[in-house]
């Protein structure tokens, strides 16, 4: 490890990427899982944990090495070789590699090979697909991806999703069991299987992004991280020849177009702003441009996915430098399409909001009243907030105040609470 000994003094040198440990965790787990077999996922996780503990101990005293990733990988490799020597016959490993592991001649080169960057890249994608196992529910898939590939602990996932620790733990443990029983990781080289599972993978990444963008967590930093992870994993998918479909491009576009608005959505003081009164100069216009470019790349073939439509809607917003410039008619039309591609009460609600912008609040309220499955929105604060906004716009202050009050009772975090309290106040006072 000679080239790895060179270190920078404690507290000196380049700042560490704050996500370094999390990302390296995912990379090491997939390399080790390749070696040990998916049924030994827990063993791979132990080795990774051990590598981190050593890194922390040594770096605390000696400073961060010039190439921290290489140091971590080298440590994990050493631990893996030790373990395989010690327990060569005590366990069964990846069937394809068993013979290579059994012989001392091939053991070390085999371990090195699975840690090669291109091998890790492939394995991350295989793991991503494996996590989207058909026997798992969507929320379990997302949790598993976050846990294994993004290095979030169970506690951090429970925090991000505002769900109980015990329930999250159970969900992840069960999901891991399904994964371990799948015997083999998903093959990303077989086109028919790949194409069959791709929509599930896209969906999981979409949900991951949404959790960051619209989710319940109070912590802006956590939400930003979820969005960034979703974008990182989607970029990984785009690097695979079978993964870069129009749908994946559209998904990547939609994430960028939304992420571009994040700085306006939550201001520096941590206050939430509705799309209609965001300071658009705060939007990330570079990200917006990237999103539009990706959306153009997605416009091949005949398949229109929900991601195409959602990205197109976000692009219409992105074209309007001022809210007054928004082409609401185009947005309503796109929501009509989205209702055909992937209908849901939330989509219908958003469509109604666009209708209100286009034809006035009465029309919007009518549309809301006509949403099928409206009762599924009863727990969603922004359902009541949308009605409150429309009532306020047509001068029904008292009704508006009641609606915002109902929304406030459902607020999922202090940020939403502050936002809705302001709206309640606006109904009581003279200003809008």
């Amino acid at each position: 490890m000679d080239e790895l000994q060179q270190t920078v003094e404690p507290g000196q040198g380049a700042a560490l990427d704050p996500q370094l440990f999390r990302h390296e965790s995912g990379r090491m787990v997939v390399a080790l899982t390749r070696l040990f077999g998916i049924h030994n996922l827990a063993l791979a996780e132990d080795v990774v944990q051990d590598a981190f503990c050593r890194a922390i101990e040594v770096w605390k005293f000696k400073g961060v090495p010039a190439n921290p990733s290489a140091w971590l990988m080298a440590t994990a490799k050493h631990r893996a070789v030790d373990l395989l020597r010690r327990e060569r016959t005590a366990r069964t490993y990846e069937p394809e590699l068993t013979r290579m592991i059994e012989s001392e001649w091939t053991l070390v080169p085999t371990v090195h090979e699975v840690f090669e960057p291109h091998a890790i890249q492939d394995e991350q994608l295989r793991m991503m697909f494996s996590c989207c196992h058909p026997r798992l529910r969507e929320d379990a898939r997302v949790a598993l991806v976050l846990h294994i590939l993004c290095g979030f602990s169970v506690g951090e996932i429970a925090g991000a999703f505002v769900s109980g620790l015990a329930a999250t733990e159970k969900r992840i443990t069960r999901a891991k069991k399904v994964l371990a029983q799948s015997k083999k990781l998903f093959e990303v080289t077989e086109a028919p299987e790949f194409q069959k599972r791709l929509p599930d993978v896209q969906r999981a990444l979409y949900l991951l992004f949404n959790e960051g963008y619209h989710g319940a967590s109070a912590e802006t930093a956590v939400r930003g991280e979820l969005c960034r992870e979703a974008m990182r994993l989607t970029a990984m998918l785009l690097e695979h020849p079978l993964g870069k479909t129009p749908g994946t491009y559209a998904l990547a576009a939609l994430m960028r177009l939304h992420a571009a608005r994040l700085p306006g959505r939550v201001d520096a003081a941590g206050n939430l702003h509705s799309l209609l009164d965001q300071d658009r100069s705060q939007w990330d216009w570079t990200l917006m441009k990237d999103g539009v470019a990706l959306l153009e790349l997605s416009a091949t073939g005949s398949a229109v996915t929900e991601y195409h439509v959602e990205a197109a809607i976000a692009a219409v917003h992105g074209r309007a430098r001022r809210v007054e410039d928004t082409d609401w008619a185009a947005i309503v039309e796109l929501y009509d399409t989205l209702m055909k591609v992937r209908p849901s009460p939330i989509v219908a609600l958003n469509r109604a909001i666009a209708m209100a912008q286009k034809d006035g609040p009465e029309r919007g309220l009518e549309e809301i009243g006509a949403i099928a499955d409206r009762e599924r929105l009863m727990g969603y604060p922004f359902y009541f907030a949308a009605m409150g906004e429309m009532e306020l716009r047509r001068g029904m202050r008292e009704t508006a105040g009641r609606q915002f009050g109902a929304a406030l009772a459902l607020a999922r975090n202090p940020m939403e609470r502050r936002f809705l309290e302001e709206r309640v106040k606006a109904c009581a006072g003279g200003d809008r």
Partner: protein
Amino acid sequence: MTEFIYLYRGGDSPTSPAEGQQEMQLWMGWMKELGEKGHLKAIGSPLEKTGKLVSGKTKVVSDGPFAEAKDLIGGYTLVTASDIDQAVELSKGCPIFRRGGAVEVRPILQMNM
């Protein structure tokens, strides 16, 4: 100025990669501060959690660890301070306390009295 050794004992392991990274950065920050204030004599080293114990007239060799995990020495640092009170005060900035660990502060025996 007198020399002291800090013996770091116990402390829970981080439960996630992010937490581990934060932990490490806190330690590095603390060490850096000690250095900037001129108290750092030798940054020291971490110790493996296992080892051998050789003891008795018959020199019996046994396997470590030699203490409960919570008391196990995980590393050491040499510092200089005006007296034990200052050395103790300085040790309070150590991130080990956040994880339930302890710092043993021991003066290095001086030869020139």
